[in-house]
């Protein structure tokens, strides 16, 4: 197990390094210097040159990359010239709310989608399956923000059960105090995720149901219920572990769209706002964090799969 973990971690670290490099290069090519942001659009070329020199933006890219890496190791994510704040402080401030949204919707969607997909596989082509499949297809084909807009129209504007916007309180406790306002964003995220997870879970269940060992279980005299609970659920859920690990970037993208729609003061909204002024360090930091979360998510998924699938050897 230890050997496996070490090897898996080494790969993960290499991937993270690759991600930092690629992201850095991408941003470097697109926007070699934040000078204009800092000095304003009317700055003279000479002033820009001087600022670039003073802040090291005239050095070759590998030099700048080395500096960036060095800072990164010290936990220094740079400075937002736009918001005049350190990026770490900004992230710490806004992360809890985004985290709450993402984790709540992830947990909810797993709790709904896995049983739903198994049910659909077992009751293939029944009324329930067809209804669920059709609904899933609609939500699967709908961008998250459109789901959000439909929810706003129905529950906030027509039925007036909730507020259309989430109050501008970015602290976790503040948001929790106004928790009913968080229902719609979380539901919007959950519906999208359930649509895609249940589709996969259904087909995974169908795959398992076609296996010989299900026939064998029936030949033992097990009731359908026992066949499913003992031999179907676990085998059909195993492929979902990897899938959920891989779907993290999508969840985060959905989170961004939902924060934008409901005006939730989280990381996603920060990112969208930073795009306008090309707030280099914020963009870089958020992209990196998302990528690292994805790598970590895949790592966790791999470990979970290793623990729950006896076929995978821990050598």
């Amino acid at each position, binding site marked *: 197990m230890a050997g496996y973990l070490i090897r898996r971690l080494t790969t993960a670290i290499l991937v993270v390094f690759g991600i930092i490099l690629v992201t850095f290069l991408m941003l470097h090519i697109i926007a070699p210097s934040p000078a204009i942001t800092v000095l304003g659009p009317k700055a003279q070329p000479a002033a820009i040159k001087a600022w670039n020199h003073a802040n090291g933006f005239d050095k070759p890219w590998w030099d700048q990359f080395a500096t960036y890496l060095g800072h990164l190791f010290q936990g220094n994510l740079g400075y937002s010239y736009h918001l005049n704040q350190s990026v770490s402080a900004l992230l710490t401030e806004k992360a809890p709310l985004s985290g709450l949204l993402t984790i709540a919707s992830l947990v909810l969607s797993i709790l709904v989608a896995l049983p739903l997909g198994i049910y659909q596989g077992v009751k293939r082509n029944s009324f329930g399956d067809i209804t669920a499949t059709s609904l899933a*297809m609609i939500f699967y084909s709908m961008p998250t923000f459109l789901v959000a807009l439909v929810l706003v129209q129905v529950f906030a504007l027509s039925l007036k059960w909730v507020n259309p916007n989430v109050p501008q309180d970015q602290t976790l406790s503040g948001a929790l105090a106004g928790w009913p306002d968080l229902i719609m964003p979380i539901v919007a995220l959950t519906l999208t995720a359930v649509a895609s997870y249940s589709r996969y879970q259904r087909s995974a269940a169908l795959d398992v149901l076609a296996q010989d060992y299900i026939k064998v279980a029936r030949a033992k005299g097990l009731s359908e219920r026992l066949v499913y609970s003992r031999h179907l659920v676990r085998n059909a859920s195993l492929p979902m572990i990897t899938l959920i690990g891989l779907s993290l970037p999508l969840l985060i993208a959905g989170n961004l769209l939902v924060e934008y729609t409901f005006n939730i003061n989280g990381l996603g909204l920060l990112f969208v706002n930073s795009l306008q002024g090309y707030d280099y360090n914020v963009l870089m930091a958020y992209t990196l964090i998302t990528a690292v979360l994805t790598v970590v998510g895949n790592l966790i998924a791999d470990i979970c799969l290793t623990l729950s699938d006896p076929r995978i050897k821990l050598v």
Partner: protein
Amino acid sequence: MSETNTPAVSTETETETARGVEDVSVTIESPAGPEPAVPAVSDAGELQSTTSAWKLTLREFLKNKMAVAGVAILVFFVLFCWLGPVFYHSNQNTTDLLNTDGAPGAGHPLGTDSNGFDIIGRIMIGGQTSLWIGFAAAVIATVIGTLWGAVAGLLGGLIDATLMRIVDILLSLPFLLVVLIISQRYGANTWGLIIILGVFSWLVPARLIRGEVLSLKVRDFVSAARVMGGTNTRLIFRHLIPNAMGTVIVNITFQIADAILALAALGYLNFGVRYPNTDWGSQLGDAQSNLSNGYWWEVFPVGVSLVLVVMAFNFIGDGLRDAVDVRLRKR
């Protein structure tokens, strides 16, 4: 009971060789000529009816009602977006500030938007952009992905490992964020968006095609071509690509759906094509703040169009995949 037959040893018909020789003297028939309806009987048994693999796929596809519905929806929207403006004239060039945010009614069956453009006409224009960008980006992504995956799968070894590690790293990058960052700078026009979306979504097809090539290259018919002295180029173009085509086409379909969705997200966040051009996402982005003013017609008609088109592609993709699977099972 007492009746028995003298066992007559049945051996292969000796005439078959002669028949083969006879046929040689006949010169080449036109290949398009109809097959003789006479069942071809020989000691090898009868031949079944003749259908090509593609026809079989098509037949299976047409059995799938959802997939056929998907085709119908798609055809409708293509005609609506490109032929619609010919029949349904609306001013889409100059803003009409006297008629902004107009409710559905005479002259504007679905109302007007915040610039006073007719919504129906706007959906047609936006649809052209969304469908075209989605299609083109998906083709680019699939072409890159297919080549990448095929090379990795076919060559194997260190090349495969390197190519697939690159895919792993890029897959960990958050697609939407990267595309947003780049389109902030280079987007805003149709080709910019096509290239950005295409260049960043080839990873999944690359994995898919690699898997397909890995399973194809160990098949006996590929070995057979090798034994005949077939070169790698021949293997790729005569055997691997034609056989992976089904997977590639299914992938393009899903890829279009995904690209349209991604473009919608970009447009929604204001990074789609720039005014006066528009796409469905941009329309939704412009209109979302007006939803609370009660201008539902600015959001939902275009929203429904978007969902229907994406759903159509997903239905077609599902139908094609199942049809290809059935054919695989039959062979």
